[in-house]
Structures are given as C-alpha cells and as structure tokens.
C-alpha cells in the first residue's frame, strides 16, 4: 500500500472554461489604457504622475488591508490596479498627490475592502471615491480652474461646464470630431471618445463586460437628451450627441456602470439599470446643480440594483 500513486480527487465538474479574475481585470486595464494616451499627450508628465501614483497607492492600500485583516494577499487579481487606473482616468491632471492618496484610500478601503473585498461592494468603489472627493473638495473637479495653467490648441473650456453656465450657444464651438478625438478638457482618461469606445467594444466582444448595460446606458442618455431638446424650452438644452461625447459618459458606460458587484446580472434588470443610469445622468446635467451627472447617476442606480435584480425568469420547476 505504500508508495502508491496518489490521484487528485474532487467532485464534478472536472472542466473549467479557463476564465479567471486576474485575466478579466488585466484585460479591462489593457482596454482602458489606450484612452490614457491622449491625456498624457495633452497634459504631459503630470498625467503620468497621477496615473502611476493612483495605481500604486491603490495596490498599496489593498496590500495594507490584506495584511491588517490577515487575509490572502489579493493584489494579484488586478482589481486594485484597475480601481487605481479608473480613478486616475477620471481625475484632472493637476490633482495634488494628497487628493490621489485620499481618493485611492476611499476607493479601495471604504469602497471595497470594508464590505469584504472584491464582490462585496454595493457601490462602484471608483465612483464612491470620486463622489466623496468632489463633495469634499469641489475645486478639485472644476476642470476649468484646475487646468488653468495649460495652454491648449483647442477650446479651453470644460464642455459640460460651458453648457451649464452658457447654454447650448456656449458650446457651439465644440466640434464632434474634436470631442471624439479627445480634444476637450476633462479627466486624464475620459476625454478621448474613440479610444474609450474601441476599448469598450473589445471588452464587450470578449465578454468581460455586459453589453446590455453599456448599450442601455448610452440609449438612455440619447433618448433623454433628445426628449429634452425637443420638448424642453427651445434653445435651452443641447442635443444627445454632445452629451454622449462629453464628461464621463463613455467611460461611465463601458468601465464604471459595468462594474460587476454593483450591477445586475439578469437581462431585464440590466436594461433597466443601464437606462436608469442614462436617464439620471441627463436629468442631473440638465436640471440638477452638478455639472456632470454620471457619477451620482450610477451611484444611485447601484443603490437600487439589488431590488431591480429580483426581476428574473422563473426557475425550472418552480411552483408559484
């Protein structure tokens, strides 16, 4: 009986499709990174510093919590790095180091780890952090003020702020092509529409994000903005294309609203959730006080996610 061969024993199934947490997160990071390049091109070294510092501190916070909580070190799954990257992509390039450090602390520790880590967070950690930062230090996210020291060769105003303060006439100078190519003021990685769309489509095709959420998010924005333009008081509201290409819309649709833990998984709930995010975004932008509505719109829908995800098909053999 000794020196007997030992075999691995477990219960079925014995196959796995090869997907993994790290694979998923690294692919999302890779898909998001190209959108950072225009930001670096525009803002130079400051942008690199913010991105690098944000990712590094996010990983560091995760590690610290792992060690304090005596849990398995989870920085390898790439989620902390992804949080750091997405946070930096939303921040203006001039964000001071302490704000980045605070931001990643809020995102990783308060947004994710205190809920039990990956998968436990009820809100998107990145958005929670942005919300807390922007409420605490409003000046940080006043892009016009933050980026005052730069001299661009394109329209120098933050499009959504211009819209809010000057109305549609004030944003007539923004061409769709400029907005698509990232020639607009905004967060480091949230301005270049074409690259965000390309990365998002890659993730959709590969199945790393759920297309239903992205599509219904964009559809919600389009429809609501259209309704405002046609039925609102004339000359007061801008059309849907402008809303789709400015602010955090695209990064929100593909990278933020689709965060796994805080979004629904059933088909109809995904559509409701996405559309809800889109509708709320336009309402906040057009009616509310904030310049951009994406952050609070998604956080609000995160809140109702557990309820709407109860809408699901009848299970096999379920007797009602």
């Amino acid at each position: 009986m000794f020196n007997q061969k030992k075999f691995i024993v477990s219960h079925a199934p014995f196959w796995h499709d090869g997907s993994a947490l790290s694979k998923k997160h690294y692919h999302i990071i890779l898909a998001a990174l190209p959108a950072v390049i225009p930001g670096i091109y525009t803002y130079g070294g400051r942008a690199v510093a913010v991105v690098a510092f944000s990712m590094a501190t996010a990983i560091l916070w995760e590690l610290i919590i792992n060690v304090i909580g005596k849990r398995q070190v989870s920085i390898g799954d790439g989620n902390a790095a992804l949080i750091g990257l997405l946070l930096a992509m939303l921040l203006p390039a001039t964000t001071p180091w302490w704000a980045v450090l605070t931001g990643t602390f809020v995102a990783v520790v308060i947004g994710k780890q205190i809920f039990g880590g990956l998968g436990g967070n009820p809100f998107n950690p990145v958005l929670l952090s942005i919300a807390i930062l922007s409420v605490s230090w409003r000046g940080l996210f006043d892009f016009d003020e933050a980026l005052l020291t730069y001299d661009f060769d394109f329209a120098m105003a933050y499009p959504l702020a211009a819209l809010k303060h000057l109305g549609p006439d004030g944003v007539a100078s923004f061409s769709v092509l400029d907005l698509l190519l990232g020639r607009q003021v905004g967060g480091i990685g949230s301005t270049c529409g074409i690259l965000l769309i390309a990365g998002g489509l890659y993730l959709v095709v590969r199945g790393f994000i759920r297309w239903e959420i992205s599509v219904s998010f964009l559809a919600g924005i389009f429809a609501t903005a259209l309704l405002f333009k046609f039925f609102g008081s004339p000359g007061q509201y801008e059309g849907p294309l402008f809303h789709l290409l400015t602010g955090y819309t695209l990064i929100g649709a593909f990278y933020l609203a689709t965060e796994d833990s805080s979004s629904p998984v059933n088909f109809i709930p995904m559509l409701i959730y996405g559309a809800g995010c889109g509708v709320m975004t336009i309402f906040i932008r057009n009616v509310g006080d904030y310049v951009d509505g994406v952050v609070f719109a998604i956080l609000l829908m995160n809140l109702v996610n557990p309820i709407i995800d109860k809408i699901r098909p009848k299970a096999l053999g379920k007797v009602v």
Partner: protein
Amino acid sequence: MIKKSFFGTLKPRLEYAIIDVSPPDPQEIPASTSVQLFAGVALEQEKRHLLKAGDPVKAGQKLTLFENKDDYVTAPVSGTIAEMAPFYGDFGSKMTSITIDISENHEIDAHFKKIAPSPTRENAKEYLCCLPGRFPVSLFSDSEQKITTLLIMGMDTDLLTLTQQFIVKTKTPAIKSGILALKETTGIEKFVIAVPETLSQDAVSTGAIVKPVGSIYPAASPHLILNDILGKEIPAGQSFEDMGVAVVSAEAVASIGTAYDSGQIPAKKILTVIDKSGQAKMVSAVIGTPLKDIFTALNMTANHEDRIIAGGPMKGASVYTEDHPVCENTDAVMVQDRSVIPLISDNACINCGECVRACPANVPVNMLIRFLEAGQFMEGADSYDLYSCIECGLCSYVCTAKMPILQYIRLAKYELARIQKAEAENV
C-alpha cells in the same frame, strides 16, 4: 478541455460527442485475475453474513449478504470470494466491497436459464438488478407510485461519452426485446427513447417513441428532456417517479432484452475510455474489472497526481485508485493529466453573472451561492431555487472566480436531506 471562446459574449457551447455512422467494435478487455463488486448494504458485525471468504460462486449467481434483505449483487464471473470489506462511496454512503478471484473454468449458474422463457415481475426483481446499465430494480417492485412512462436514454448525458449511443446503434434488437419484456413485467405502457438526431432512424425499430435531443450540453439532461420534449415540468424538489416517469439507460433495457433472449445474465459493460488527449475509445469489460486492467490493455498511464474519473468531465466521479472497478453504471472512464486539472479557489462571488446566463434551469446562482457559502442551505432552498438545479455543472465550468458552485449545491442538498431525515425520525 474546451476553453472559453474568444468571443466571450456567446454562451458556452459544449457539444456532445456524436457517434460515427459505423462505429468500430469495442475492444475486449481480457479477463482479469479478480473482480470487485459493490453491494448496497454495509457489513454489520452483529449480523451473520450469508457469504464468507472462500465461498465458491458461479457466473450469474445471486450473492445475498444478509437474510431477509432484498439487496444482492450478481457475480459476473465464476470463482471464489476472496475478500469482503466495508467501502465508502460518495457522501459517505456505506457499501460492501466483494472481491472475487476468477477461476479458470467458467461455470454458469443455471437458475436464471430456467425462468428466462417466462418473464415475470418477480423473477426480474430476483435476478436483474445488477445488469450492465443498472436497471432500477424498484420498477419491479409494487410501489405506491405508478410509473406510466419509461424514458430510455439513448443519448449520453455527459460530454465525450458515446456508450448509450453505441448501444442504440448496435443493439436495437436487444432494446426492442427488452421493451417487450418490460411491458410484460412492469405494466408500463409508454416507452420513449431519447437519441441524438443522427440515431433517430436506428431508434425507430426499437418500437419506442423516438424523441431527438439537441446536441448542445446539457440538452440531454433527463430534466430538460422531460421539460422541453415531453412537456412535463417536474416541480422543484420532486422526483421523476412522482411524475410517473422512470429514466433508464438504453444499455439497461438492452441488457434486459439480452438476458431474457439468451437465458444468461449479461456481465459485460460497454464503456467509453477517454485518454489524456480527449480521444475516446469504446471498450467492453466484465463488470468489476479494475480500471488499471483497462489502462494496461489500452496502453494508457495514470500518473501520480493525475485524476481518474468514472464518468464524463461534467458529471463523473473521481476515484481514489486504479483498482477501482468498472461498475454497472460506469459509462465512461477518463484520465485527466495533472497539468490540465483546473483548481478551484476560495474567492468570493464577484457577481459577474456568467453562471446565471449559463444556467439551463434559470437558477439565480449568484444569489444562491452567497447563501450556500454562508451555510444557509434552508434559505437557499426557500428563496433561491436550490431544488431547481439539475446539476449540469455549467456554473462551476464558467465561474470567473473559480468557485466550486455545483459542489456547494450538492453539499446543500445532501445536508438538507440529512436534516429532513433526522427530523422525520425524531418526530
């Protein structure tokens, strides 16, 4: 192993293996020196056993362990009993393993031959519980539940496996006479045979109603066949028998036909052997043959830390040793190399929803697993459709966090059954 496709939005498409138009004959595995059988009852110290080591047995002889117990095994070979030992199956089920050393002269027990010309419910129950394919012996007993429909599985329920299709392809006359014998003995009127599209023509001559089954896993799961093809939905938590349906393999029916036609209890099991590269080969081995004999005959090796699976990749059961025997219902044997064995993790669910999209029974797996992980099995059963699960294993297969989802589900069902049993006994 089939990996996720590049286009990840698609649902997993695991296709069943479909048998060739003219399959080659199965390779005969030469007789071993001993066979091992599992009797469904545990050895008990205080009771006198009717069998003991050294007893001679004949092929086809009924081996009963205790007096006044219905359970028995049928010796597939003639020889002497070498050893009787306790054996623990899945979930700690207690059994007795009986090892028989094969003698050189093959003697056949004559009892069955005498009664074979006149099949009755009693003699079927008496002799046919250990046939290849394992026919459920309860169908021969008088029970309160009236079985009206027999669903014959001419399609293998697991991937890569070809055994039942092979039986339909090559043994239609045996299935036909099996159905006739069953009509006589059990009184079941409706016989339905589920086969892949390609075997529809072959299956017609069995006389059963032919129902073609889709080619994408898990379409051949009996629950889904009943639901999609026969239009009967089993209320969650109820069994097939509650619905008046019994599910048997084509091989079991064919074995009954062969037994009554030839007057001998068949002892050879057809099985699909899947090597490390996923190549399938049909073999025919005597029930009780140790798996290592099959590996030797096919020039396969199972190394340290590989995995040996009795059954297919999604529904099989891994075994501890190469000495494990071929059982009556072992449709496949598979060896998985240590380098491709996917390991499970202790990650928490990240709510990506892959399982929910993959689940054929619409179980809210993402919610269910949260409760099961916390040990709240009852809550999972009450609110999150635990009993709707048909145990296809797709949730574990697609899980991004590599959670042992199906394993948790089976544990929950087992624990709940244990609690219910204990409560029933205490009342």
